[in-house]
């Protein structure tokens, strides 16, 4: 018996090494570097939280970090509303269900680079939607958010919702299909409207699943890199920058390791702060 178990242990050994070295070890290294004065090369002299102080007095970081919450809040809310709405509509025994499902889900198979480029073209004023509406005769129509400093970040929301709504639809639809038919029969007999059953019975039942969706979307938001690179490249200026892009930029192009590490650890803390309460509320539900 022990010898056979030994084979199983050997089989998971690479995974243990990968987790220990590449994931946990690397996090510790980055956390340590964030407490040093490292610049182009790692420097192991500790300087306390100086890099974090510097980080939060760096204009570009403040913009990126704030953008993450604007983009994240709108994207998560928009995707959830659209995704849940689509799932409910598809669940009401319609024809051509698989056609609709296929259409709503296809953007998810595209990369964020492709998604970002498509939406960049649609939103570029001189060739995109603005130009189209103007050509219809509304000469003064303006929709140029993507080149406006204060609005560029919102354009990312359109693209991200388009990309992710199908995922939420698929997950919620799977949940709806698992709801006991008995509930529908009982509420129908009592003459309770479908809208009320969804709002007061079915969706509360799916709360753990909705929490999972929020977690998935929140992680996607914090990780975001490709989409912003393809769509606005952080511009105009750095007005639509996001933390993921900030870290890559400061690590590989500007070679400012200490600051980049402090930013990366801040990203990690944000994820933990978002996920932990959601995770516990999900546990509490079960």
């Amino acid at each position, binding site marked *: 018996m022990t010898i056979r178990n030994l084979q*199983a242990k050997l089989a998971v050994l690479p*995974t243990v090494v990968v987790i220990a070295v590449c994931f946990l070890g690397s996090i510790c290294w980055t956390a340590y570097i964030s407490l040093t004065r490292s610049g182009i090369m790692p420097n192991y002299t500790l300087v306390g939280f100086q890099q974090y102080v510097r980080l939060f007095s760096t204009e570009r970081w403040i913009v990126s970090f704030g953008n993450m919450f604007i983009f994240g809040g709108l994207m998560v809310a928009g995707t959830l509303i659209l995704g849940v709405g689509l799932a409910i509509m598809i669940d009401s025994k319609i024809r051509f269900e698989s056609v609709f*499902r296929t259409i709503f889900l296809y953007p998810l*198979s595209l990369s*964020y680079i492709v998604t970002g480029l498509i939406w960049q073209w649609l939103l570029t004023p001189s*060739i995109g939607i603005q130009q189209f509406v103007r050509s219809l005769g509304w000469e003064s129509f303006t929709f140029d958010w993507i080149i406006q400093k204060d609005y560029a970040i919102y354009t990312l929301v359109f693209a991200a919702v388009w990309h992710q709504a199908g995922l939420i639809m698929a997950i919620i639809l*799977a949940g709806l299909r698992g709801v006991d038919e008995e509930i529908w029969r009982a509420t129908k007999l009592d003459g309770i409207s*479908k809208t009320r059953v969804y709002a007061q019975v079915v969706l509360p039942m799916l709360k753990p699943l909705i929490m999972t969706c929020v977690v998935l979307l929140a992680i996607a938001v914090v990780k975001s890199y*490709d989409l912003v690179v393809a769509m606005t490249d952080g511009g105009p200026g750095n007005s639509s920058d996001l933390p993921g892009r900030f870290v890559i930029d400061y690590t590989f192009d500007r070679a400012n390791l200490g600051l980049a590490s402090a*930013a990366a650890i801040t990203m990690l803390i944000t994820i933990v702060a978002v996920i932990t309460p959601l995770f516990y509320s999900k546990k509490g539900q079960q």
Partner: protein
Amino acid sequence: MATFDRSAGSPFVYKLAIYLVLILVAAAFLLPMFVMVVTALKPMDEIRSGSIFSFPVDPSLDHFGKAWLSACSGLSCSGLSEGFWNSIKIVVPATAFSVLAGAVTGYALAMWPFRGAKALMTALMIVAFIPYQVILYPIVRIFSTIGLYNSLPGIILIHVIFGLPVMTMIFKNYYIGLPQELIKAARIDGAGFTRIFVSIILPMSPGILAVTTMMQFTAIWNDYLLGLIFAGRDNLPMTVQLSNIVHVSMGEIEYNVNMAATLLTALPPLLLYFLSGRYFVQGITAGAVKG
């Protein structure tokens, strides 16, 4: 609330409204793809004068040829074909190895319980949440120390590493649902870890293998960040080359060539999705519902 009750009483109006909304949203979802296809077919003067939603008057496939063979990035003018083949060289082995690694690890965790297996599962679940940005640079240093940085084996290995947590969780969740008696019987007959895996477990896994293969193929094909950082100049995947071609800022922007290039890059995962969407849906929901 009274009005809602009444509308529930007339299912026809209710249904009609649902179809209307669904069709409108579906049209909005298809529009970006439509714009991409028609623009890729239009000559430049048609793009400049017409609207983005109009059908091409004088369609041409030349732009696809140019995007494939001679579009310029900052480095060279050899089009996307090079990136396509680089992506194939990365995606095929990386998908195979990461699915296999996930299957073996998931099998070991699900069917050969040992001390620490539970802790390992928890660790896998936690690390699946870590943003790449936190661990990328240390891994770059490790890879350059062992000579894997900027190489084909390096980019393949990094995809296997980053795929491991999710792949393992999916396989473990699947294998834990199989009847454990099968394994017990085989063990009594003297079959070992490897034999049980090859002759009992693998033949029972075609569905889950299809799901995970599709997930990893799509994820790795669509990757941009890891390819940019780990692949090295000679192995840049298609997504990175696409971005280089589109963002090159010399002369007039050729929207038709750019859209053709984007379409070509999107095509492999898109085809896979349309041909076997069932597995795709199973993959994303399996990952989400159980995790």
